[in-house]
């Protein structure tokens, strides 16, 4: 997500440079050149100036058109990125709330299951302990009946 945001941000800076700073520099350069050439009395130069003006106008139009496409791209890209961010945030918060809700609902069930398991283990342990103790007592009694000392 941050990677995409970084790319978008870099692209924005690049396009802003192309759209506002670079054309102004180019226009200034052409304007100075055309102003100096326009004062010339040579017909050939004037024709060339006219050609250059037409070419410049065409290039400017192309540039503007391209910039508008890039603007569209940025606009829709921005909308898509924003939507993705909103969707991600929504999914995150929804999941969090769902998990919390589910946990609250099922907590006592799980607690009961754990408690039942604990009781079962407790029963088994005490059963083994009682068995061992009683066997020992019976063994002791049997040996004393036989007149032997228990080991």
């Amino acid at each position, binding site marked *: 997500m941050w990677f995409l945001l970084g790319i978008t941000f870099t692209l924005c800076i690049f396009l802003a440079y192309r759209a506002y700073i670079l054309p102004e520099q180019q226009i200034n350069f052409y304007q100075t050149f055309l102003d100096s050439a326009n004062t010339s009395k040579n017909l050939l130069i004037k024709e060339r100036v006219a050609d250059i003006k037409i070419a410049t106008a065409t290039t400017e139009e192309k540039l503007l058109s391209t910039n508008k496409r890039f603007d569209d791209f940025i606009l829709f890209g921005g909308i898509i990125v924003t939507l993705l961010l909103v969707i991600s945030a929504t999914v995150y918060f929804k999941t969090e709330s769902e998990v919390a809700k589910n946990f609250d609902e099922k907590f006592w069930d799980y607690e009961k299951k754990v408690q039942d398991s604990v009781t079962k283990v407790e029963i088994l342990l*005490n*059963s083994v302990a009682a068995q061992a103790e*009683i*066997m020992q*007592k019976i*063994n002791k009694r049997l040996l004393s009946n036989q007149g032997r000392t228990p080991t």
Partner: protein
Amino acid sequence: MMQEQLEKIQYTLDDFNLLEKRVRDNIAKADEYKQLDKYLSSVTGEEDSYILNKMKESGILTYNEYVLERNKNKVDGNITGTVLGVIAALKRLLTNNLF
């Protein structure tokens, strides 16, 4: 009279199996626990009631109180485990599978 009846009682393997199920399913009565305890005392030759002593360790003073507590679904692993252990040990004694 009652004392004599309790001392005379004899268990078979089937009785122990049935009693074990009754204890597990929580339908054994206070008299059954009492009889088992007496039988155990007669087997071990000790005068102390082994099961009752375990009950007292858990704060339960009589067999009836234990049955009452179990009916309230408060299964005490300590006492129930002891009773089941006693039954298992006596079953082993009956089947000569002591050691």
